[in-house]
C-alpha cells in the first residue's frame, strides 16, 4: 500500500482512535503517543499484506490493547491528568457557558471513573456510534456483554449526574 493511500484511509478514523486512547489514558500527550505507535504498527501490518475484515476495527482494537498495556505498565504515571479541550474559549462574563463547561467536565469525570470495559463500550457506542457487532469485534467480547456493559455504564452515569445535581441544589 502506498503511503498516501494509507494516510487517506487512516485520516478517516484517526480521531476516533485518539478519543478512545484519550478516554483510557486521560492525558492528551499519552493518547497522541499511543495512537502514533499504533499507527506505525498498523503501517507495518499493512505492508506485511495482512488481511483485515475492517482496517478501522483492527486499528481500534490495536488502540484499545496498546492503551490497556500502557495502563498496566503504569508508563503514563507522570502525565498530566487535565482535559484541556473543555478549557478553551473561556469567557468569565458568560455564566451559562461556564456552567455548561462545568457540567460537561463533570460528565467527563463521571465517565472516566467507570470501569475500563464500561468506559470503552460507552465511548465506542455513544460517542463514536459503532454498532454492537463492531464493538464486540474491537473489544473482543460478545455482543451481549457489550450491551450489558453499556446498560450499566449509562445507568451509572445518569445516576451520578442526578446525584451531583441534587447535591448542588441542596448546597445553594
Amino acid at each position, binding site marked *: 500500500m502506498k*503511503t498516501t493511500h*494509507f*494516510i487517506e484511509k*487512516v*485520516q478517516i478514523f*484517526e*480521531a476516533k*482512535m*485518539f*478519543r478512545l486512547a*484519550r478516554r483510557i489514558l486521560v492525558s*492528551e500527550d499519552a*493518547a*497522541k503517543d499511543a*495512537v*502514533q505507535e499504533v*499507527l*506505525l504498527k498498523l*503501517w507495518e501490518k499493512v505492508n506485511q499484506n495482512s488481511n483485515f475484515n475492517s482496517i478501522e476495527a483492527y486499528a481500534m482494537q490495536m488502540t484499545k490493547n496498546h492503551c490497556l498495556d500502557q495502563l498496566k505498565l503504569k508508563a503514563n504515571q507522570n502525565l498530566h491528568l487535565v482535559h484541556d*479541550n*473543555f478549557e478553551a474559549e473561556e469567557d468569565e462574563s458568560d455564566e451559562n457557558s461556564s456552567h*455548561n463547561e462545568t*457540567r*460537561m467536565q463533570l*460528565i*467527563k469525570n463521571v465517565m472516566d471513573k467507570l470501569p475500563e470495559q464500561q468506559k470503552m463500550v460507552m465511548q465506542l*457506542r*455513544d*460517542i*463514536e*456510534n459503532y454498532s454492537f457487532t463492531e464493538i464486540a469485534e474491537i473489544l473482543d467480547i460478545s455482543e451481549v456483554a457489550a*450491551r*450489558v456493559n*453499556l*446498560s450499566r455504564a*449509562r*445507568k451509572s*452515569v*445518569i445516576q451520578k*449526574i*442526578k446525584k451531583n*445535581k441534587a447535591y448542588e441544589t441542596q448546597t445553594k
Partner: protein
Amino acid sequence: MKPKQNKELKTLLARFEKGETNRVEEERLNELLQLEENKNNFSDEAELFAYFKTAKKETANTSLVQEIFDKTQQFQNSSENSSNAFHVFYKYAAILIIALGMLHFAYQYQQDKIQKEEARMAYLETKKALFIISEEMNNATDKLSEIEDFTQQTQKYINP
C-alpha cells in the same frame, strides 16, 4: 409537551438506559431532549447527549498519521544529508591522505638518490686517492731496488 411525546420519551429513555435502543431511536431521543419543554424535566439526560456531541468533536488538532510520515521524511532527509556530508568528508580526506603519501614517498626517493650519488662520489674519490698512493709506492720501489744494488756492491768491498 403532548402526552404521547412524553410517553415516547420515557419509553426511549428506559430503553436507552438498558442499552436496547438503536441509532435511529437514539437520534429521536436526542431530538426530544432538545425540545424546550423537556429541558427542565430531563436536563440530566439532555446534558449527557450534549456531552456526547461535544466529545465527538475532540481531535488531536493535527493529523497524527500525517505527522508520523512527515517526521519519517524529515529523518530520512536529515540522515541522507548527514551521510552525504560524511561521504564528501571521507572523499576529500582520502584524496589528502593519498597526496600526502605520494609526496612523502617522492621526497624519500629523492633523498635516497642523493645519498647513493654521494656514496658513489666518495667511492670514486677514495679509489682515485688509493691509485695515486699505489703509483707513488711503485715509484719508490724502483728507487729501493737501486739502493739494494748499491748495498750489495758496497758489501763486496767492505766484506770481501
